[in-house]
């Protein structure tokens, strides 16, 4: 019983070590590139920093490595399934096609005011995106 407990404890510690190394690498790749916390614009930086660590992780031998790889695979599959299948809420306005678009004023990235009505006579493609990248 004690041996089984010690083995389980060792496995857990090794997994935690591996996971924290990967997380730390992710964070450092973000800060080294001068990103604000939570934002990333250059995937190549992340790939360059993380690839060697993932390579050593993928080549881990023995039951611990296999167990860790299985856990990561399950997590990735689950997160991918959730992302792809969770529907967004329904819009509050079901359809407004053929109706006048509501006019608005908003500031752009330079603080200049944009007025939708000023573009009357032009085709406009409004693109609402989620933000927080």
């Amino acid at each position, binding site marked *: 019983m004690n041996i089984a407990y010690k083995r389980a404890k060792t496995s857990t510690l090794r997994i935690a070590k591996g996971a924290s190394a990967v997380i730390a690498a992710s964070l450092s790749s973000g800060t080294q590139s001068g990103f604000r916390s939570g934002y990333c614009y250059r995937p190549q930086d992340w790939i360059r920093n993380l690839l060697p660590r993932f390579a050593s992780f993928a080549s881990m031998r023995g039951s611990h490595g296999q167990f860790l790889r299985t856990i990561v695979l399950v997590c990735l599959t689950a997160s991918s399934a959730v992302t792809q299948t969770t529907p967004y809420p329904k819009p509050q306005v079901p359809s407004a096609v053929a109706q006048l678009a509501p006019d608005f004023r908003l500031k752009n990235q*330079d603080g200049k005011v944009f007025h939708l009505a000023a573009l009357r006579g032009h*085709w406009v*493609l409004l693109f609402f995106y*989620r933000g927080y990248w």
Partner: protein
Amino acid sequence: MTELREFARHSDVLQRLGVRLVPISVDDRQHAHDVWGKVAEEKFAILSDPGATVIRKFGLLHEAGHGGADIALRTTILIGPDGRERWRRVSQSVPDLPSWDETVTMIKKAQE
């Protein structure tokens, strides 16, 4: 963000079609500026709607959609020269986002 990169990549096509692209999100001005420089390649202005006022006006609020914060439902709306909506596509999930080809097809169809 992928869609914004696509728009930036094909900005010449939008220009030829006479379409002004207007991206909007709840991001603050500083972040909108970052997106303008790094994603939109400075090809079109990025609007900032931190209070989601305009997003609400269009009925596109995704309440608490990002860690408790309100965000916009990913939506593409084509407005004609008369100010009327010609096409609206509210994406129901990530794979439901309209492709660049689909967007161009809908623009051309509306302009016929």
